[in-house]
C-alpha cells in the first residue's frame, strides 16, 4: 500500500510538473489537476499506512525503548559527572563529554519521532524542548571547559542534569497517560 502511495505521489508530481513546464506562458490545468488528485490520493495512502506502521506495537516499542535507554544513560552519565565535578580538572570536562554523550544523544535524536506517534505532538514538543535545553547546556559546559571557566562548568553541568532528568521524568509521566 505504501509503495503504491509513493508511486502515485511520484507519478502525480512528475505529471503535474511536466504539464506546468510544457509551455512558457500557460499550464494545462485539466491534466495538471488530474495529476495533483492522483498525487493527493498517494499522500493519503502513505500517511495512513505510515501512521498505522508507526503505531504498530513492535516498531514503536523498539524506538521508545531506544529513546528511554539512551536518555537514561545520558542522565546516569551526567549525574556521575556532576557528582565527580570537584575532582575533574576544568579543561578535562570537554574530553569527558566527548567520550560519554555523543552516541546516546544521537540515538535519542534519531528515534525522537516515536514520541509524537505514541503520545501526540504536544508531548513531543514538551519532551524535545526540555531535552534541547539540556543539550545546549551541555554544549555550554564544553565551551566553558575549553576556555577553563570552572564555575561555569559546574553551574551548567547541574543545569544540564536537571533538564535531562526532567525530560526523562516527562517520558515516564507520559507512559501511564498513554495506557489510560
Amino acid at each position, binding site marked *: 500500500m505504501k509503495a503504491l502511495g509513493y508511486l502515485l*505521489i511520484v507519478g502525480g*508530481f*512528475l505529471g*503535474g*510538473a*511536466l*504539464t*506546468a*513546464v*510544457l*509551455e*512558457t*506562458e*500557460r*499550464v494545462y490545468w485539466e491534466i*495538471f489537476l488530474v495529476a*495533483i488528485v492522483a*498525487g*493527493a490520493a*498517494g*499522500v493519503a495512502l502513505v*500517511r495512513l499506512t*505510515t501512521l498505522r506502521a508507526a503505531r504498530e506495537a513492535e516498531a514503536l516499542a523498539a524506538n521508545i525503548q531506544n529513546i528511554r535507554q539512551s536518555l537514561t544513560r545520558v542522565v546516569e552519565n551526567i549525574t556521575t559527572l556532576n557528582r565527580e565535578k570537584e575532582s575533574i*580538572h*576544568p*579543561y*578535562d570536562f*570537554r*574530553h569527558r563529554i566527548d567520550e560519554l554523550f*555523543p*552516541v546516546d544523544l*544521537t540515538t535519542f*535524536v534519531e528515534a525522537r519521532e516515536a514520541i509524537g506517534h505514541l503520545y501526540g*505532538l*504536544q508531548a*513531543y*514538543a*514538551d519532551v*524535545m*524542548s526540555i531535552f*534541547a*535545553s539540556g*543539550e*545546549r*547546556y*551541555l*554544549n*555550554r559546559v*564544553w*565551551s*566553558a*571547559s*575549553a*576556555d*577553563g*571557566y*570552572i*564555575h*561555569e562548568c559546574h553551574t*551548567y553541568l547541574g543545569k544540564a542534569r536537571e533538564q535531562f532528568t526532567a525530560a526523562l521524568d516527562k517520558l515516564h509521566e507520559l507512559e501511564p497517560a498513554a495506557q489510560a
Partner: protein
Amino acid sequence: MTTAEISRERPIRTGSYPELTWQAVLVGYFLGAIITLSIGYASLILGFSIEGSELAAILGFGILRGIMRRTSIIENNINQTIASAVNGASAGMMFSVPALFILGQTEFNPVLMVFGCIAGGVLGIAFIIPLRKQMIDFERLAYPGGIAVAAILKSPGAGLHKAILLLGGAAVSAGVHSISQLTGFENWQLGNLIGMPQYMNGVWYISLLTIGVGFLAGKGGVYFIVGGYVCYWILAPLLAALGLLPTPQTLTEMATSMPSYLRLQLFRPVGIGMLIGGALTGIALALPLVVSAVRSMQMAAKTKTPLSQDEMPIRLLYIGISLATLLLLVIAYNSVAEMGLLRGVIMALLGTLWIWVAGVVLSECIGRTNWSPLSGMTLIAVTILIIISSGLGDKAAIISSVMVGAAACVAMAQATDLMLDLKTGYLVGAIPRRQQIGQFLGTWLGPILVMILIFVLHKAYTLGSDRLPAPQGTALASMISGILGGEVPVEKYVAGAGLGALLSASGIGGLGILVGLGFYLPFNIVLTYTIGTLLRLWSDWKKGKQWSEGVGVPVAAGLIVGEALVGVGFALYYVITGALGSA
C-alpha cells in the same frame, strides 16, 4: 606531553563566562562594518552576496583572542552574531535598491529607505524568534553554515587533530577557489566533453564550499538534488522528445542558452511557487508545534523560571512587531506623494505578512540545504507590491514597491542570518536571548552603511555601468519592467505552489521546499552539491557516524571557510583597486 598535561598548564578561570559584553558588541560593529562594505561592494560586481558569519568568527578570533586577550567561545559567538547582523543589510539592500538607480528612479527619500530597512530588519528578527524552538529544537534542521561557524568557534578546545582537519580543508578549498578566481575557470563543461545534450546541462560548478555544504546537510540534501535531476534529466529530455524545446536558432534570436532558457523560463517560476506552497503546507502541518513553541515562550514569560531567562520575552516581540509594522506603514505612506492612506496600509500589511511567510521559507531552505532563495522571495514581494501600487503611475509604483520591497528583503536576510547564528549558538551553548539581543543591536547599522555606499559608488562609477554592473539590481530592474508590462508567470507560480503543497503533505519533512529549491537553483550547483551528499551518505554507511562527525564535519567546515575567506579576499581586492581607480 599529553593533551591533558598541556591543559593542566593553562589558567583556571573563575567568575562568570563572558558572553554579551561591550567588547563583543564593539568588535561586532567594527567587523560588521568592514564586512558589510567589502561584501556589499563585491556583490555589485560579482552578482551575489556572501554570508559574513565565518569571516566574522575568524576575524573575531584574531581581535578578541589575539589582540584583546579575551577567552570565551560564546563571546566570539555574540561578536559574530552582531557582525553578520550588520552584514544582513548588504544581502538585502544590494539586491533591491540598485534597481531604482538602474531604472533611473533616483528621486526617492534615502533616509526613509534606511528607516524602512531597519524596520524590516526588526520585523524579520521578531517574526523568526518564536520559530527557533520549532526549527532548531524540534525539527533539528542542519544549518550547515551554522555548523561550520561552530566548528571555527570551538577549534581552540576541539584538539589539534580537528584543528588540522579544519585548516587542511580550508587550505585546499582556498587554493582551489583562488585558482578558479584567477583563471576564470568557474564551471567544468563535462556534459559537452562526453557528448551530453545541452538540455541535460552537464556543467559542474568548481566549488569545494558547495561540496562541504552538501556533506554537512547530509541526508537532508538528497531531495534537494532530486529536484535538480527531475528538471534536467527527466523533464528536459521529455520536452525534447515531445519537440517542445526551442531550436538553436531560436535560442540565438532570444540571446540565451538552453540551460538558461530552461531555468529562467520554465523551471525557476515553478520552483518559486513550490517553495511557497511547500512552506505554507509545512507550516500548516507543523502548526501544533509552532503554537506549542509560542505558548512555551508565553509560559516562560509568566513563570520566570531560570530556563525562561534564556528566551526573549514574547511581549517584547509583540511590541517590536507592532512598532516596526507602524514604521513600515509610515514609510509606505510617505514613499511617494501619490500613495494615499488605504493603499499605504495595504502595502505595509502585505509587506509585513510577506516578511513572515518568506522568513519561514528562507529559514527552512537555509536550514536544510544552506541555500537561500532570497531573490525569488524578493521578486514575489515586489510583484505583489507593484500590483497594489499600480494606478499610481510607473514612477510612483517602482519607487514605493522597491522601498517596501527593500525592507522585506532586509527582513528576510536578517531572519535567515539569525537562524544560522542561533544554530551555531546552540552548538556552542550560547543563551538564545543574548544572541537575539545581539542581532537586534546589529540591525540599525547595516542599512545606514549600505545606503551611503550605494550613493558614493553611484556617484563615482554609476550603478549598472560596465565598471559596476550590479547584476542582482539589473535583474530585478528587468523583472520590474516585465511586471509593469504584464509579464508575470502567475500560472507557473500557482502550479508550483500546488506541487510544493503535494510534496510537503507527503510526510517527508520539507520535501516541497527541498525539491522546489532544486527547481529554483542553477543545475551546476546541484551537480557539485551531489558530491557532498554522496560522500556523507558513503561515510555514514561505510565509516560510521562517529567518523563522519569527527573527521568529515571539520573537513567540510574547513571547505566552506576556505572558499568564503578567499571570496571575501577578492572582495577586498576589488575595494582596494576600486579606491585606487585601477580596476
